[in-house]
């Protein structure tokens, strides 16, 4: 049977198990919508996915093949514009190549180090016809991601781990992407070592477990950063030694330690920090093999060394670095997040925007499961929170979804309240309204002599009225005593989107903080309260 290109696209998406397509109509894509993603508008989203290694397939409409290169109406070199921020992209010039190209796109997006893949389809290709057959598999000689780690390297890792006196396990987004929390948890338990997660790795190891030291990095906990710096053996798993994570690499390198690094992407290894035992492979496969070899070797933790190390960590912990003023008469953002955690029983899907609220959410919502924390780490895209919450709610109808945001971030995509209405998405928006671009204000306070240029927002809308004008419910909360009741009320309303506008302390800062360029342990801590 012959199908048109547009029909082929739909069939391919069905074959890949795609349930929801997000898009925006336009002339060159009408054949698919009866498609065009406004690609220029989508670039921010694509770049966000690229930085965080998120699998995504983007299908865009192009002017007809005969018009390409002639500055035709709405022509745009999509492949050119998106090239620096995709894993790969394709321009399909012949309808006969369409199905196999879409197959390749899904294969590339999902395997190896995941990432966005774009398929640009000219209008005449969507209307041309050809027989349809969807390939079961696709092989590409130029693309063969490694899955299993090198057994010899894993043996070296086992040895290092067994000899460690001050070990530390540092894990990132790769654990989430590889669905390897179970394997990670098993290994960490077997070893009895402390574990920390990056911002992208939260939920990879259960946050309520005593071996968890919290997030590390620029706004990581005192104990996680101290342990990271002072360990003698570091096992890094699916994490890329980002500058917000290890601070100044020269300072990090002042301490001698052996590093084992598991990552599927060789270019992530020894990029910023030299590694002693590189293991290229898929996290879950490598961790399974590592655990198997450890068990086979009859591994017994060195209790004496570990208990000395844990008591040192206990001392660091006793700094209570996340403490804040619990008796404040003004709502503290940390307080809202602690209550949010309790009221949702730690079981919500939490998306966030970018700024202080994002860091507080990462510090105070204890994620025990993977894929519950959805945020933009690598690019830090303000405006991410609400659309992300929409996607999560589509994928998990009936689940509790909270979008933690700030009064500046939420306005980046506020128009999506309309889409939420149209599709009845009962998201709970937790707006920590400090009337400041708080994260910017904090930097200005610390590093620019209190010069608060441009960060003060005295032209804010009335968010309750705004939510109501879109047909949603809004609640403004101004007293600490009202925080809990408001949250309870909102989460009781299972079918409604509720916009919670919390008027929070404008002067609150995120602690600890490692200033850009400083060493990981050169933290600014909250003043003694």
């Amino acid at each position, binding site marked *: 049977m012959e199908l048109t290109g547009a029909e082929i696209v739909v069939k391919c998406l069905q074959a890949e198990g795609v349930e929801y397509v997000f898009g925006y109509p336009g002339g060159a894509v009408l054949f698919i919508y009866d498609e065009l993603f406004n690609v220029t508008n989508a670039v921010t989203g694509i770049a966000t996915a690229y930085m965080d290694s998120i699998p995504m397939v983007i299908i865009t409409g192009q002017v007809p093949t005969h018009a390409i290169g002639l500055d035709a109406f709405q022509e745009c070199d999509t492949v050119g514009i998106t090239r620096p921020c995709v894993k790969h992209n394709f321009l399909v010039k012949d309808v006969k190549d369409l199905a196999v190209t879409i197959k390749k796109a899904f294969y590339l997006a999902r395997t190896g180090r995941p990432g966005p893949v774009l398929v640009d389809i000219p209008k005449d290709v969507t209307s041309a016809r050809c027989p349809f057959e969807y390939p079961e598999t696709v092989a590409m*000689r*130029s*693309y063969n991601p490694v899955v299993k780690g090198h057994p010899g390297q894993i043996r070296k890792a086992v040895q290092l781990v067994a000899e460690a006196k001050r070990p530390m396990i540092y894990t990132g987004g790769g654990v989430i992407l590889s669905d390897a929390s179970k394997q990670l948890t098993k290994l960490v338990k077997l070893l009895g070592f402390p574990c920390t997660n990056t911002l992208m790795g939260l939920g990879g190891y259960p946050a309520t477990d005593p071996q968890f030291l919290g997030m590390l990095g620029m706004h990581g906990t005192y104990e996680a950063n101290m342990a990271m710096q002072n360990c003698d053996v570091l096992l890094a798993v699916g994490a890329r030694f980002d500058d917000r994570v290890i601070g100044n690499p020269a300072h990090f390198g002042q301490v001698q330690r052996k590093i084992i690094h598991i990552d599927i992407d060789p270019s992530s290894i020894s990029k910023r920090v030299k590694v002693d035992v590189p293991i290229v492979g898929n996290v879950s496969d490598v961790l399974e093999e590592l655990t198997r070899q450890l068990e086979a070797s009859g591994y017994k933790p060195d209790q004496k060394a570990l208990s000395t190390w844990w008591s040192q960590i206990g001392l660091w912990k006793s700094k209570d670095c996340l403490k804040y003023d619990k008796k404040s008469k003004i709502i503290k953002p940390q307080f809202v997040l602690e209550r949010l955690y309790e009221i949702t029983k730690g079981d919500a899907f939490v998306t966030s925007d970018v700024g202080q609220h994002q860091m507080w959410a990462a510090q105070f919502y204890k994620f025990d499961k993977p894929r519950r924390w959805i945020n933009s780490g690598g690019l830090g895209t303000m405006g991410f929170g609400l659309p992300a919450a929409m996607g999560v709610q589509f994928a998990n109808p009936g689940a509790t979804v909270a979008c933690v945001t700030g009064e500046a971030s939420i306005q980046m995509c506020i128009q999506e309240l309309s889409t939420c209405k149209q599709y009845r998405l009962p998201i709970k928006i937790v707006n920590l309204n400090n009337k400041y671009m708080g994260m910017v204000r904090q930097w200005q306070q610390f590093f620019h002599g209190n010069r608060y240029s441009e960060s003060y927002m005295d032209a804010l809308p009335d968010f309750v009225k705004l939510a109501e004008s879109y047909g949603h419910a809004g609640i403004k909360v101004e007293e600490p005593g009202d925080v809990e009741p408001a949250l309870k009320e909102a989460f009781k309303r299972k079918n409604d989107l509720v916009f919670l506008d919390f008027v929070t302390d404008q002067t609150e800062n995120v602690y600890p903080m490692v200033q850009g360029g400083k060493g990981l342990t050169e933290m600014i801590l909250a003043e003694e309260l």
Partner: protein
Amino acid sequence: MRHIISIMLENEPGALSRVAGLFSARGYNIETLTVAPTEDESLSRMTIVTTGSDDVVEQITKQLNKLVEVVKVVDLSEAAHIERELMLIKVRAMGKEREEMKRMSDIFRGRIIDVTENTYTIELTGTGAKLDAFIQALEHSAILETVRTGASGIGRGERVLKV
């Protein structure tokens, strides 16, 4: 340090711009770049000459390998290899200069491939350094035009780069 990197990549439109884009986006240096299809039409072979510390060059090869259309990457400088570059150079050749120019070309094993009353066009292959030396040896004002391909490289001995 100077490195000469050989790449086998799919002979597809856009593949070159991915490689070039990678170098500019990550601030890597390209001294020369040559590319052409191989005996297998579906593959192109590219040679890039770059400079950078060992760490940078390690990242360059890793990043190149990551490009979906790249099939193989080898840093030729890691072992014995041969490099050649082609230059076409048009020079002034009038009166008694003609004899001198021909002699010079012979010394460098060049070939005169086009002749007019006032000019010679000389074809010269060799390492970049040899081509530089030839240019140096000529009187500056005698050089009318030069075009160079950039280096192509291949491993010495029985070592081959094949898919």
